[in-house]
C-alpha cells in the first residue's frame, strides 16, 4: 500500500460514527451566519435588517481575492447584523435571520434528481464555484475558485481528491463517499473539466474499505479516475503528504502543489462542487460528525449553516456531562472550544467530545533528546530545536530552519515521551516569523 515517505504517526482512529447514516438536522427558528467563514477578509453583507431572504440567496459578497460569498441557508427575515462571540470568545460579525417557511431561490434544482452530465466550459464552471461561495471543506476554508486558478507558469496534469480523512474521530468524508459516491464522481469530472486534466486520483486510507469499494465500482465506468488505497497513517490528508503518497512527487519548501502539476481537493468540497454546478445550489449545508467516547450515541449530520451546534448535538442526547474538552474538528488538528452554543460555519467538519478524565494534558518533563519528534515530523523539521529557539525568541534562526513549512499537524507533540508543549511554541514562532516576513515585504515595497 502506498503512503508518504518521511515521518507520520499512528494514533487510534476512533471512527465511532463511521457506521451511521447522515441525518438531516431540522431547520431551526433562527440562524446566525458568520461573515468570516473562510481564510482572508470577512465578506461584506449586502442585505439590510428587515429584508426578506430565500434559501440560497446571496447575503454577503466576497471581499478581496482570498474571500468567498456567503448565502442564506434559510428563508425568512434578516433581524439584525450584529457582533457575536464565537466559540473561542472572539468577536465576529454575523447576520441573524428569523426563519419563516422554507422557500428556495427559483434557480436552485430541488428535485433530488441525479444529474450525471456536465457540458459547461471551464470558465463557466469556475465562475459557478466562485459564485456558490465554495471553500476547502477539509477545515482550512481556502476559497476553491482560487485553488482552481493556479499560476500560469504551472502546467497541471493531475487532480488529486483527498479522501484520506486521517484525522481521528471525524467521518463526514467517509459517509459522503458511501452515500453520495455517484455525485462525488460527477464532481470529480467537473473539476477535471475546470482544470483541463484527464487524470484524477482519489486517495482513501485503508480503514475505509467500504468507501474504497464503492468509489472503485463507480470509477470503473469513468475514464481517467483511479481510486488508490493508502496505508493508514497520520497526516496522510496533508496536501504535500498526499501528493507524495499518490504520485511520488515532492513539493519543495515554500512552493504550491501546482508547482508539481497537481491540484488537491477534499471529498466534501467535490460534493459541494457537484451541487453548485449541477443543481445551482450554493454552499449552505455542512456535513459533520458528532462523536465522543462518552456520548450516548455518535452520529453524522447534515445541518444548515448557521444552525446552533447545540441543536445538532441535542439530536443525539446532548453534550455528555463529564465532558472535559470540546473540540471543533478532530483531536489532532482541531481547536478546543469554550462552549457549543455557537453557529455551524463552513469550518465545522465535526465536533469531538473528550471526557474530563482523558482531556487534561500530561505534565511536561525535561527533553531527553530521543529525537522522536524529528522522526515523526512529516515535513522533515526539527521540532525540539524550533521549540527551544521559540523559548529564546530567536525568530531568525527559526525562519532559516524552515518553520514556515510546519503545517501544525501535531505529530511532534503527540509522540514526545516528555510531553513537551512543542507545537504550542512552534505556533508562536510561526506566527511571529510570518509577521516578520510580511513586514519585510511591505518595507521592500
Amino acid at each position, binding site marked *: 500500500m502506498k503512503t508518504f515517505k518521511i515521518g507520520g504517526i499512528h494514533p487510534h482512529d476512533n471512527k465511532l460514527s463511521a457506521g451511521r447514516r447522515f441525518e438531516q438536522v431540522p431547520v431551526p427558528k433562527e440562524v446566525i451566519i458568520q461573515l468570516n467563514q473562510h481564510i482572508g477578509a470577512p465578506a461584506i453583507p449586502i442585505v439590510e435588517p428587515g429584508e426578506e431572504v430565500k434559501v440560497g440567496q446571496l447575503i454577503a459578497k466576497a471581499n478581496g481575492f482570498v474571500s468567498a460569498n456567503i448565502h442564506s441557508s434559510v428563508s425568512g427575515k434578516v433581524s439584525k447584523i450584529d457582533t457575536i462571540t464565537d466559540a473561542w*470568545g472572539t468577536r465576529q460579525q454575523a447576520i441573524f435571520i428569523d426563519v419563516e417557511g422554507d422557500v428556495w431561490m427559483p434557480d436552485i434544482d430541488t428535485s433530488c434528481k441525479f444529474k450525471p452530465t456536465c457540458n459547461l466550459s471551464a470558465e463557466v464552471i469556475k465562475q459557478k464555484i466562485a459564485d456558490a461561495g465554495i471553500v476547502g471543506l477539509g477545515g482550512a476554508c481556502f476559497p476553491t475558485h482560487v485553488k482552481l486558478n493556479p499560476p500560469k507558469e504551472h502546467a497541471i496534469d493531475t487532480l488529486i481528491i483527498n479522501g484520506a480523512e486521517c484525522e481521528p474521530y471525524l467521518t463526514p468524508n467517509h459517509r459522503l463517499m458511501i452515500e453520495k459516491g455517484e455525485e462525488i464522481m460527477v464532481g470529480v469530472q467537473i473539476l477535471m473539466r475546470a482544470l483541463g486534466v484527464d487524470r484524477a486520483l482519489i486517495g482513501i486510507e485503508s480503514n475505509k474499505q467500504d468507501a474504497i469499494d464503492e468509489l472503485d465500482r463507480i470509477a470503473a465506468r469513468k475514464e481517467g479516475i483511479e481510486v488508490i488505497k493508502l496505508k493508514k497513517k497520520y497526516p496522510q490528508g496533508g496536501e504535500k503528504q498526499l501528493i507524495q503518497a499518490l504520485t511520488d512527487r515532492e513539493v519543495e519548501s515554500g512552493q504550491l502543489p501546482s508547482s508539481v502539476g497537481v491540484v488537491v481537493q477534499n471529498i466534501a468540497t467535490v460534493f459541494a462542487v457537484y451541487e453548485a454546478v449541477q443543481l445551482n445550489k450554493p454552499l449552505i449545508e455542512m456535513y459533520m460528525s458528532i462523536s465522543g467516547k462518552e456520548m450516548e450515541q455518535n452520529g453524522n449530520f447534515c445541518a444548515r449553516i448557521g444552525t446552533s451546534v447545540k441543536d445538532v448535538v441535542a439530536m443525539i442526547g446532548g453534550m455528555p456531562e463529564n465532558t472535559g474538552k470540546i473540540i471543533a474538528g478532530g483531536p489532532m488538528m482541531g481547536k478546543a472550544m469554550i462552549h457549543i452554543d455557537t453557529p455551524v460555519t463552513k469550518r465545522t467538519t465535526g465536533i469531538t467530545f473528550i471526557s474530563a478524565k482523558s482531556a487534561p494534558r500530561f505534565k511536561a518533563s525535561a527533553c531527553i533528546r530521543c529525537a522522536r519528534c524529528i522522526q515523526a515530523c512529516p515535513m522533515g523539521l526539527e521540532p525540539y530545536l524550533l521549540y527551544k529557539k521559540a523559548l529564546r525568541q530567536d525568530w531568525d534562526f527559526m525562519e532559516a530552519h524552515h518553520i514556515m513549512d510546519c503545517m501544525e499537524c501535531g505529530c511532534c507533540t503527540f509522540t514526545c515521551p516528555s510531553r513537551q508543549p512543542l507545537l504550542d511554541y512552534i505556533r508562536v514562532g510561526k506566527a511571529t516569523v510570518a509577521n516578520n516576513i510580511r513586514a519585510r515585504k511591505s518595507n521592500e515595497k
Partner: protein
Amino acid sequence: MYTILYTILLLGGVGAFAALALFLTAKQFHVQEDSRIGDIEATLPNANCGGCGYAGCRQFAEACVSAGNLENKRCPVGGDAVMSQVAGILGIEATSGSPQVAVIRCAADCAKRPTTNTYDGAKNCKIANALYIGESDCPYGCFGYGDCKDSCQFGAISIDPETGIVSVDPEKCTACGACAKACPRHLIEIRHKGPKNRFVYVACSNKDKGAVARKACEAACIGCTKCQKVCEWDAITIENNLAHIDGDKCRMCRKCEQGCPTKAIHAVNFKPLER
C-alpha cells in the same frame, strides 16, 4: 649549556619580534576614540535593557556623543541623576524629564472576573492569546501567565499566587518598556509618576460596551463618563468605552477614584479612600 643559551636567544628573539610587530600594528591602526564615550558608558547603569531605544548602554553613549545634545535621549533606568552626569560629561545643560513607571491596566482577580473555562495549554500569554479569549469572558484582560514578569530585568513585576493579579513595584520599575512589548494584549502602559512614586490610573483595558464589560468583570471600566465629568483638570478622555487618565495633566486629586462605580481607578502609594 649551549642548549639553554640558544633556547633563550631564540625565544627572546621571537618575543622581541612579536612585540615590535604588535607595536607597529597598533600604531598603524590606532583609532582615536572620543574618551567621553567611555566616560558616559561608565556612568550609565549598564543594564543594557534597551529602554532608551538603543541596543545597549554603549550604543546610547555613542549616540549621545555623536549628536552632542540630549534631545530625545534619556536613560529611563538612571533617571535624572544619571542624565545630569551625562550632561556634565558632554558639557551641556541637563534637561530633566519626569520619572515614569509601568502600570498594568487590568486588576481583575478570579472573584471579580468569573472563570468560564480552564486553559490547559502551555502557560504563556502569547500562546493563549493566539488561541482564544482566555479563562474569562473579558477579551482584553490579563492572562496572568507572566510574559511581562519574565521580560523584566529588574524584578519589578510580581504575580500574586492567590489572586493572580500582576503588579509592578514602582520603586524597582525603571520604565524601560520591555514588559509593554512582551504583553500580547498591550495592557502595560508607561506613564508619568508624581512625587513619592504616586500616580492615578485606570486599571482596565476593556473596550466593550458597559453592560458587556460589567458582565465579564466587576472591576471593568464601563465608560460611564463619571470620572470625566468630575475631573477639574481635563485629564480624562474616554475612547471606545474606556477611560484614560493623562499622567501629565493629572493633579492626583482622586475625585475620579472616589466617583468610579466599579473601582476601576487605582491610586498608588496613597492612603485608601474613605468612601
